[in-house]
């Protein structure tokens, strides 16, 4: 009984197997007693887990909650904070307090919801075709919820840079945890854990490179070099994944630990502008071309005929891309931002921020 077949059984149990494979599996189950036993074991496993009792909330749960709401109590801070290992934090503290604070806040666990009431204080934009460049990350821009920004070269570039730094930071953090385990476990298990971050990092690097090739941004030499190193390491992760190569994985992990991520935080310039239509068309092509790019950018669609806001949590599923929506305006969820709202044309503010 192969691992793959057992995985298919698991998906079959959840009704997740595509119809073609499902037919084949049903045929096998009808003729292979061992396979049928495996399925029954899996069903038994599920029944066992679900037989555990549910824990009911106490009788005062609802009353206490409404008391807290009436008292004006706010959301717990932790809901937007990344649970990073302390080893990682210490490493970042050693690298500088600003970097540490940044990593704590630039969290992948930040929910991609629309902005809260605090989020309009700063919004992402720069004048179209600005020569001034984008500011590098600043500790002063911490602890804020993400904002919505129009899809423009400067906002996409910022999002790409943000995502690149954040995904590579997260990857460094997680590889610290797994580096000791590579020899002890199936490399595929390690790769499964790291794959989302590798994908996001690759996608964001692709975005930056596309914008560089299209002469939309100009990278500082240090940024360019660090990005090239990052791309090489990510390629190793990718190959380690496809070839199930533990040695290559170890090399990639070691190189990643050596990578000076500060280089990716360098300021870069918007050097050329393009028409919004052309830019959106080019961006759409990038998104359709690469699953990794889809992982790296997050969108919401605002507006629409109902006048209500639709939130799509992007998890790399092509069908969730907002460009298929009619009547809605795709907006970028941006988690770092440079300008004050007064610098942003009012028509580009998301409806949710003004309601």
């Amino acid at each position: 009984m192969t691992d793959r077949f057992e995985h298919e059984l698991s998906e079959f149990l959840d009704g997740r197997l595509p119809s073609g494979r499902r037919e084949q599996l049903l045929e096998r189950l009808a003729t292979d007693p061992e396979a049928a036993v495996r399925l029954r074991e899996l069903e038994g496993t599920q029944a066992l887990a679900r037989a555990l009792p549910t824990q009911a909330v106490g009788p005062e749960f609802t009353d206490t909650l409404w008391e807290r709401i009436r008292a004006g109590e706010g959301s717990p801070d932790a809901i937007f904070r990344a649970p990073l290992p302390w080893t990682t934090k210490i490493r970042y503290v050693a690298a500088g307090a600003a970097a540490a604070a940044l990593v704590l806040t630039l969290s992948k666990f930040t929910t991609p919801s629309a902005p809260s009431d605090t989020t309009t204080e700063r919004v992402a934009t720069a004048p179209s075709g600005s020569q001034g460049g984008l500011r590098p990350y600043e500790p002063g821009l911490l602890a804020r919820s993400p904002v919505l920004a129009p899809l423009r070269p400067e906002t996409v570039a910022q999002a790409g840079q943000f995502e690149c730094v954040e995904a590579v930071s997260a990857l460094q953090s997680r590889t610290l945890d797994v580096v000791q385990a590579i020899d002890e476990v199936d490399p595929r298990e390690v790769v499964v854990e790291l794959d989302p971050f590798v994908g996001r990092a690759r996608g964001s690097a692709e975005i930056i490179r596309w914008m560089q090739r299209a002469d939309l941004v100009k990278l500082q030499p240090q940024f360019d070099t660090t990005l090239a190193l990052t791309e090489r390491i990510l390629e190793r992760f990718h190959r380690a994944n496809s070839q199930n190569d533990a040695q290559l994985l170890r090399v990639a992990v070691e190189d990643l630990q050596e990578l000076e991520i500060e280089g990716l935080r360098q300021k870069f310039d918007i050097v050329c502008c393009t028409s919004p239509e052309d830019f959106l068309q080019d961006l759409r092509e990038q998104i359709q071309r690469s699953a990794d790019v889809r992982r790296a950018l997050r969108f919401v669609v605002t507006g629409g005929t109902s006048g209500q806001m639709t939130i799509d949590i992007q998890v790399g599923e092509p069908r969730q891309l907002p460009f298929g929506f009619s009547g809605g305006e795709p907006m970028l969820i941006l988690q770092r931002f440079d300008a004050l709202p007064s610098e942003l044309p009012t028509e580009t503010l998301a409806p949710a921020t003004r309601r």
Partner: protein
Amino acid sequence: MRSSSIPTPDPATLVAFNRAMADHADGLKTFAARMLGDSLAAEDVAQDAFLALYRHLEQVPASAYRPWLYRVARNLCLDQLRRRKFKLRLFRDVERDDDQPLVPVDRSGDRPDQLAETREARERIEAAIETLPPKFRETFLLCEMQGLSYEDAAAILDCPVKTVSTRLFRARQRFKAAVGDLIKV
């Protein structure tokens, strides 16, 4: 805690919020209890998650309440676990006393021999879940025990759907290896 004044939700939203409490509060608490191994803290997590939802009702469509709540609950649990881990590192010799056992099931109607057998089996099942690697455990808790879809779990865990499928499969393998003799085929 961040405090802010927000407008009162419209009646339809309030109805949806109340329904979400009725439908998901127990599940959230159960999920948090298995993440934390602490029933009291789990109830706080569930309540904090609903409080956060209330503060973001305008931004979260009713259809997304459930994954949103679980995502928040998961973050709160991970935050607690991280703080707890740090405390343990600082005070290794101080015994942790804040962990409460899971609320026992009322099995007063069972015969004593059945009770012992059931309790033992339950403890083994609990232990098998507890010893799953964290990523596998949370996927197992969400999909296998709470019955969330792969898509919702992926949104909660911020990972691709395929990863959810793989983690769930691995978790089931390990769980079966640990308690396979209890499974009646």
